[in-house]
């Protein structure tokens, strides 16, 4: 129980019994399970962020309204834009690979 790899394996273990498939292509079932797990983790992150905002507001570090009216300066805006592009490129890796293969 103290080996982290073993622990993660146990956490993710399947239950005994055949896993049902609902779509003709079973990969769709698998893909949906992954997408929905991501949706859950996004909600988890959103809830954590909400806690951070509320705690900071409670401690009067800032007013929550300041988030909505925050305007990044030119350099911050550029850094953030660059992060978005890197992120999208990471997600769309397979399309990049398709293009490379077609060349």
């Amino acid at each position, binding site marked *: 129980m103290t080996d982290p790899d073993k622990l993660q394996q146990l*956490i993710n273990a399947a*239950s005994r*019994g055949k896993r*049902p498939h609902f*779509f003709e292509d079973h990969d*769709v079932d698998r893909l949906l*399970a992954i997408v929905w*797990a991501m949706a*859950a983790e996004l909600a988890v992150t959103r809830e*954590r962020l909400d806690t951070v905002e509320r705690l900071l507001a409670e401690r009067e570090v800032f007013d929550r309204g300041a988030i909505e009216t925050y305007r990044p300066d030119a350099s911050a805006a550029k850094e953030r834009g660059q992060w978005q592009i890197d992120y999208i490129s990471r997600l769309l890796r397979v399309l990049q690979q398709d293009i490379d293969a077609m060349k």
Partner: protein
Amino acid sequence: MKPATQLEPAPAWSEAGQHAMSAQASHDDTARFNFLANFNKYMANVVVAGNHIAFEHRAGPRWEQSHGRWPADRREIRAAMSEDPYYRMWSALRRTGMEMRQQAGRSLVLPQAGALRDRAAALNSGRDTLQLQPTPVPRYQSEVDNHCMPGGYFAEYFDGDVSAAANYDAGMFATTTGLFGQFLDGAGRGTANWVQAVRPDWQPKRILDVGCGLGHNTLPLAKAFPDAQIYALDTAAPMLRFGHARAVGFGIQNIIFQQSNVETLPFADGFFDLIYSTMFLHETSHSALRNVLREVRRALADDGLHLHLEQPPYHNMPIFEQFLRDWDCQHNNEPFWSALHDTHLPSLLAELGFSQDEIFETEIHALVEEVMPKVGQEVEDYGRGGKWYACGSGRINDRWSP
């Protein structure tokens, strides 16, 4: 069906009752359960209704075209619907949600399994009210893991492990969106209330909870009848260890948690005044169900009372509702679910020799805290709502109505 914007969110997981054996949750653990609870709520209130529309307008007509008639029973509806893209998506989401609930519970409890074991051991130490003895896992429990719970009720990753029970306890509040109450004891409280209503002033001396699990629904009977000796029987040691420790934490002393297969009750004839079970019979098998009820008859006192809470039987139920309720059997590892709900329990009780004129059917609602959502104000997520069919026998005040 309510528009999504008018949905009352599920109670936050942080509103679940804390007790001596509660797992310690991080912010992310809590948020995962919050997501799952609201997902369940949304599925029950918004998404599930689309199945009926898909059936009426798409899957049903399609079936009629190829068969020359409308589907005639739940099996034919299932065959028709299994081709329908809406039903497929609803099913796939529901199944993956059940699996995610298990993963969320396991990622909460397994890293602290050692600490939970130690806590249980300390609470259980030196008490003779926890009686464990090696008991083989019945085949109907070892073939599949009920409701997608990896390792079932029996998983022990080391000596004294209680993680299976801790996971069951932690996740149920999210699965049932608060409808079973903060301490998940709504069925037990409803049962105690019902017994007191049908037999006013009755003081049963010995009470048996058959297939008690971790005792969520045992504690209310122990509180309602503090002078009675309660026996809580189950085959799964982790559930009993955890349940006993949890009861000790509440200061409850009149329950004996005993590891035993209830197909053979280790008690003398006529020993119990009251015998009951909550959501247990559907986790047995054809022969075990009969063995259990035969033993109930033997161990029940002459003027005793017994009843068993389950989801409603399919008898006289519209076939589309049967089809939806039967989903758990095919897709949520509930192998005996269909067979139990097809069984006419009053006839079975009569066949097993219970007195015909004392056999009854009734409905029991979860009794929950003021702040928790109530059955009746909520759309039922089939198979997960806080409302049960109950069947049993014994002399009762027939003025009772739920």
